[in-house]
């Protein structure tokens, strides 16, 4: 018995310990894969850009572009509408764009480059550049040349000045456009491309339009760079977007909704964004039929609130009485809409007559396509001779720019609202913006976002804070 027992014991130890290594080899994550093909990574990166640009940045745009204002019977966006941001307000958006979008584009770029798939390469470069541009326009300085190197050991990338980022983006887009798109190594990823379903011609147009936008941003700070860049685009016969660069995979279902709708309507009960008198009054004054496509009337019909007047008494504006936003769960998220493409071209043609194009045609197309996007076929009647938006009434180049930017601002409502804010700071148009009633920065308009507190606490290279009333480099002085 005793011997038998010892034998069992001995066998037990031997069996256990000889298989020791194998027994302990169970530390491979069974739920998350070690790798996924890069075509599968592109779509979530695009979705990430869309979620921020079409979500939190859209809300910021709704307020700072004065399409909407904070309701007096809710609280969510008082900090934005009163220009009293704190550095933690946009952490989520900044964080998502870097780790959720930009880094994934980088992976796609690297892996597509390795197999010389220039189609997917161009898509990722264009989307990454688009994302970087929005960031640099909002923050002034961003991590760029040293960013996205966490796995290579750089967890505190330095911040680059705007011009470094701008020049870098142009050269990256140019490099991607210069690749061999007839090479047999190129992949056709079809519907894995959420934007154009693999249509490379549209991607090249998107890249060109983005370049145009980047150059136009610089008309104040580096007019010669802007002009030369645009001239070379035109002289090379660059095609621009004739269809919107957008995604629309959204469903009327929680977690599949348009992010602006998901946040503002689904989650917050459409209780915060209310019609701002700035846009509302302008549309009303011009009997612009888009008013009813942008706003839903309140309980007693349409009513708007002065920008930032969120402390107004509920006895004056009872809950539910103000017009709210007409957001839809299935609205697309626009990166560059067809209207924006047209207005960009119109602006370029006004600024640089030597390009030899028809600015009015582009302007008219921009207005008409903005109506069309809202399901209105009557856009043309607003731009015909003698109509309220007739381009020919603008007689000087400056008046023309004003007409273009003002229309571009209306067109950006709900679709790409942040553009209205950028254009206002770049051009000073629309001329009738009003400072928030509850402005924390006096009679000034906001110009930028604060460097995020997440970066401040994690990246020692985060620059000294710059107040939101300090202009970014391309702003109109």
């Amino acid at each position, binding site marked *: 018995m005793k011997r038998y027992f010892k034998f069992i014991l001995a066998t037990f130890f031997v069996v256990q310990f000889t298989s020791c290594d194998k027994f302990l080899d169970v530390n491979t994550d069974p739920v998350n894969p070690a790798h996924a093909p890069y075509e599968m990574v592109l779509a979530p990166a695009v979705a990430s850009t869309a979620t921020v640009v079409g979500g939190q940045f859209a809300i910021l745009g709704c307020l700072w572009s004065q399409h909407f204002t904070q309701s007096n019977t809710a609280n969510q966006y008082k900090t934005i509408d009163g220009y009293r941001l704190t550095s933690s307000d946009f952490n989520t958006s900044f964080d998502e764009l870097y*780790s959720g979008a930009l880094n994934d584009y980088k992976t796609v770029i690297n892996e597509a480059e390795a197999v010389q798939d220039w189609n997917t390469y161009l898509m990722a470069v264009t989307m990454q550049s688009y994302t970087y541009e929005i960031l640099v326009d909002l923050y002034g300085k961003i991590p760029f040349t040293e960013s996205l190197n966490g796995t290579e050991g750089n967890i505190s990338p330095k911040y680059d000045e705007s011009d470094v980022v701008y020049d870098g983006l142009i050269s990256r887009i140019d490099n991607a456009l210069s690749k061999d798109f007839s090479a047999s190594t190129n992949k056709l990823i079809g519907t894995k491309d959420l934007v154009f379903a693999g249509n490379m011609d549209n991607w090249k147009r998107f890249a060109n339009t983005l370049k145009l936008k980047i150059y136009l941003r610089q008309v104040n700070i580096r007019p010669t760079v802007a002009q030369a860049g645009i001239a070379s685009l035109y002289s090379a016969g660059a095609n621009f977007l004739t269809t919107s660069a957008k995604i629309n995979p959204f469903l009327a279902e929680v977690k599949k909704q348009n992010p602006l709708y998901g946040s503002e309507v689904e989650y917050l009960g459409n209780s915060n964004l209310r019609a701002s008198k700035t846009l509302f009054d302008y549309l009303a004054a011009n009997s612009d039929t888009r008013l009813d496509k942008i706003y839903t009337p309140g309980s007693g019909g349409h009513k708007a609130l002065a920008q930032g007047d969120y402390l107004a008494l509920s006895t004056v504006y009872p809950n539910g009485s103000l017009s709210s936003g007409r957001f839809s769960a299935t609205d697309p998220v626009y990166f560059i809409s067809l209207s924006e493409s047209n207005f960009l071209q119109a602006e370029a043609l006004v600024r640089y007559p030597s390009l030899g194009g028809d600015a009015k045609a582009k302007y008219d197309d921009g207005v008409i396509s903005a109506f069309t996007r809202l399901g209105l076929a009557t856009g043309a009647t607003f731009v015909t001779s003698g109509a309220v938006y007739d381009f020919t009434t603008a007689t000087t180049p400056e008046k023309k720019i004003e007409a273009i930017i003002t229309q571009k601002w209306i067109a950006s409502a709900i679709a790409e609202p942040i553009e209205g804010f950028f254009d206002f700071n770049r051009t000073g148009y629309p001329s009738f913006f009003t400072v928030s009633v509850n402005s924390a920065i006096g009679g000034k308009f906001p110009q930028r976002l604060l460097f995020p507190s997440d970066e401040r606490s994690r990246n020692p290279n985060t620059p000294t804070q710059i107040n939101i009333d300090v202009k970014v480099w391309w702003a109109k002085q």
Partner: protein
Amino acid sequence: MRKLTFLLTCLFLVGVGLVNAQTKSISGKVLSAEDGQPIIGATIKVKGTTAGTITNVDGEFKISLQGDAKNLVVSYVGMTTAEVQAVNGMTVKLQSNAKMIDEVVVTAIGIKRSQKALTYSVAQVNSEELTKGGDRSALNSLQGKVAGLNISSSSGAPGSSTRVSLRGYSSIGGSNEPLFVVDGVPINNGAPGSTSLKGSYDFGNRINDINPNDIASVSVLKGASASALYGSRAANGVILITTKSGSQTDKLKVEIVSNTSFSSPLKIYDMQNVYGQGWSSNHELIENGSWGPKMDGTPRLWGHMVGNQQQFKNFSAQPSNISDFYEVGQTYNNSIAISGGKEKSNFYVSYSNIYDDGILPTNVDHYKRNAFTMKGSTSSSFLTTSAQFNYINKKVSASQGGQGYSVYNNLLQIPRDFSLVDFRDYKSTFNNLDNYYTPYSVVNPYYTLAEDGNTINEDKVFGNVSLEANIKKWLKATVKVGEDFSNYQSLTWRAITKPQGYNASSTQEPGSVTRTTSYTNEFNVDAFLTFSPKISEVISMNGIAGVNVNARSSNYLQSGVIGLDLPYFYELTNSSSTPTLTPSTSQKRLYGAYVQTDISYKNYLFLNAGFRNDWSSTLPKGANSFMYPTIGLSFLLTDAVPESKQVFSFAKFRASYGMTGNDPEPYALKSTYVKSTVTYPFGELSFPLSGMNAYEVGNVIGNPTLKPELTKEFEFGADLRFLNSRVGIDFTYYKRNTTNQILLVPIAHSSGYSSQWMNLGNVQNQGIEILLNLIPVKTKSFEWNSSITFSNNRNKVIELSPLLEKVNLGGLTTVGFYASAGKPMGYYEGTVSSRDPQGRVIVDASGLPVASATKEILGNSQLDFMMGLTNSFTYKDFSLSFVFDIRKGGLIYSRTSDTNYFVGNAPQTLYNDRNPFIVPNSVQAVPTYNAAGAQVGTQYVENRTPVSAEKVADYWNNGGVDMDKTWLLDKSCIRLRELVIGYSLPKKMFTGKVISAINLSLIGRNLLLFTPKGNRFIDPETTSFGNNVAGDFGEFSSSPSVRNIGFSLKVTL
């Protein structure tokens, strides 16, 4: 009597026989009279000689008697020395020396040792203490009884969790829960539930499901030297639970215990009873707050006009409207245990059943538990075989807490002039969703109560089989195979709640169903040798050496749909939306090898030394082996220097040092891709989208060189007793440092990633623990026992890393909860009012305080000290005992407080009778300009603008001058934790009867709670953020704790 005479005669005859022999070999066995277990290492001496021996691992001895020696002196620390006549085959039963209060305690790997010989602090609580309060949880019954053990019931909801920590929090990112071991086998103490802000529920931790009536003792290994044999799982201490066994006394014993108790809320927030419904001083009929005019008792209309009808009632306070909402909870706890045995074998079988219906109306909050235990062992001279099997089924139903549509949130937002019970009929014309008086994202609490729900059904099976072989007299081998698995299914559902009409602007809930299935498994094998070789007359030794194999795995799948189609039907199929699947699978394996020896010199000097080496699957290959040593020394002054007995009845000094670890969670070594979901502040976007699946580069950078967290702990202490042991004090000082903290360190997202696993930092806990035992009165019929436990733990994060300024431990976006270097873990950060250089409050143009630009530190959650006061009195057959639990210091966040201020129900909002007032000591900031008109500075001038009557609500909504600090309450409290009045029917009634004893008792738990002025809202023990450090943050509209009053009947056959 005749029998006894006969027996005595026999003994005498045998004795005579012995006298006649010249040399006689005697063998026998020494057992504990209390539980019949063998005593290892007892000293046997032949009276009048120097010859002696000690008992082996089975309590057996063999000794030779020379000449006419006939008596043996049997002694063992903690036991009364017995002088007995030597008889071959004899069994000596030693009584424990009650006066010495020196028990045999269960230590690591289930080894029983004399408390007296231990070099470290171990506290043991026995069956009676665990069961007399009648709580369904053995852990709750430990409250206030062990110094250094912090136990809190997270709420009064039936079946809710009990949070346990020992000697403070050591790990910033990992678990801080002690390891639970039942009869030598580690048992999973998971607590299914949700800590979501928008619907938290707690299905309770698993150790709470063990029937306390089945437990013989709970032994608490507090420090690293006590727990080092559990190596990389022992960093937070170990709690050893030993279950009851049948006694080997040839008699069948049946014990029936029946408890019935009733519960009511212990503390309902104080509310003002002066102002009624409204906002900004106006009487608004749709407001969810009491910012209206003074209640004047006049009849007024209220609520909405429905079909040309409107209700009216007196505009007067309803002081008890919230307490009227709650019902009396009921708990029925019945158990039966049958046990018995003969010399070589024993068994124990029990069954228990609990039904607990909590304080919410109806039985939506309930806990049902059925537990079955079977245990037996049989032995031959060579082999002892034991087996144990436990099956527990629990069903819990809970109502969710938190913001949004939760019963508690709905309750908090009711004006003071509203009677709640009148809303009971939630489908009636005026009470239904569309016509309920307010659209402000709260609904009729009775609606949420009836229509939403959270349930779980869990089966837990655990047990073990063990074989013990006596290889040599001094050597025993044991193999114990244990298994523990828990399998549950839970269902949570939220009704389609889409108020229309008057309330169309209220939050629209599309309805949801979430189903979770989970399987958790732990397999554990220990194989070890226990040895007690004879060294010499003065030096004795015993020890243990063994190996451990442990494998843990869990499989979890949660599936949910949001957006239901059929109302009142809750199944995953009832939705047109894509179900969200959240799978989780994890595996963790471990090998361990350990050795520990105790060497005693003349029974007054004890040396304990040992180590454990672990090989863990979650550490990098090739670097997965870590060693955890321990060493300790204790010295019994009263045994070494007998003269010292003039001062001390007993005096012992001890010092020890040990190391333990905490290995990483699985899969932290490598980076992965993850299924793509983009979350934004108020929602998320998740793939598949457009029929396309997607994975993205994960945001966590794995660390292929990760090491376990390492805890090094030094402790020393003294156990001193005076006045014939009527006064005893046990003092311990410890200092524990935990380095190599495993943290998912947040890194700048601009690196492309959000976080990286790292080892860094050092957390220190040091403190003292005092146990004071007093027997102030002891006569033949009356005895008063008193014991006081005291502990103060000082926690400090010594260092983090230059990469990491602070670690977010949980908390909210408004009030954060952090750890950072130089501060205790768990400090609060929030908004305070801005101050000018002289410290005066800066106010804005309306006279309201301006928030500071940056958040400031508001205090921390650490207790200054904990104290337990236990007194018991026995007079003949009566007994009275009570336990006070005292906690001092620390803050706790309370959303209940926050919301009460928000809606104007908090009594503090009566400040200045709500008339306009100037914020005391306040200034206004006036910019100063230079000649060119540019701002050059700010001047602070005395504020003369009062906060207007309309803005008083705004003032308190922001927390007044203290802002976020207003929601942080003083956690100090004094609580009458337990009061038991017992009566045992006189023993003589039962002579010759089937029944051998009947005990009756009246039980109260949580009878009284005293909180300081700084807390008028909650029981500071209630938390809604889980059982780790984050739980310390506070409560987020959770269920109140309860007071229990009941009675217990115990019948022993």
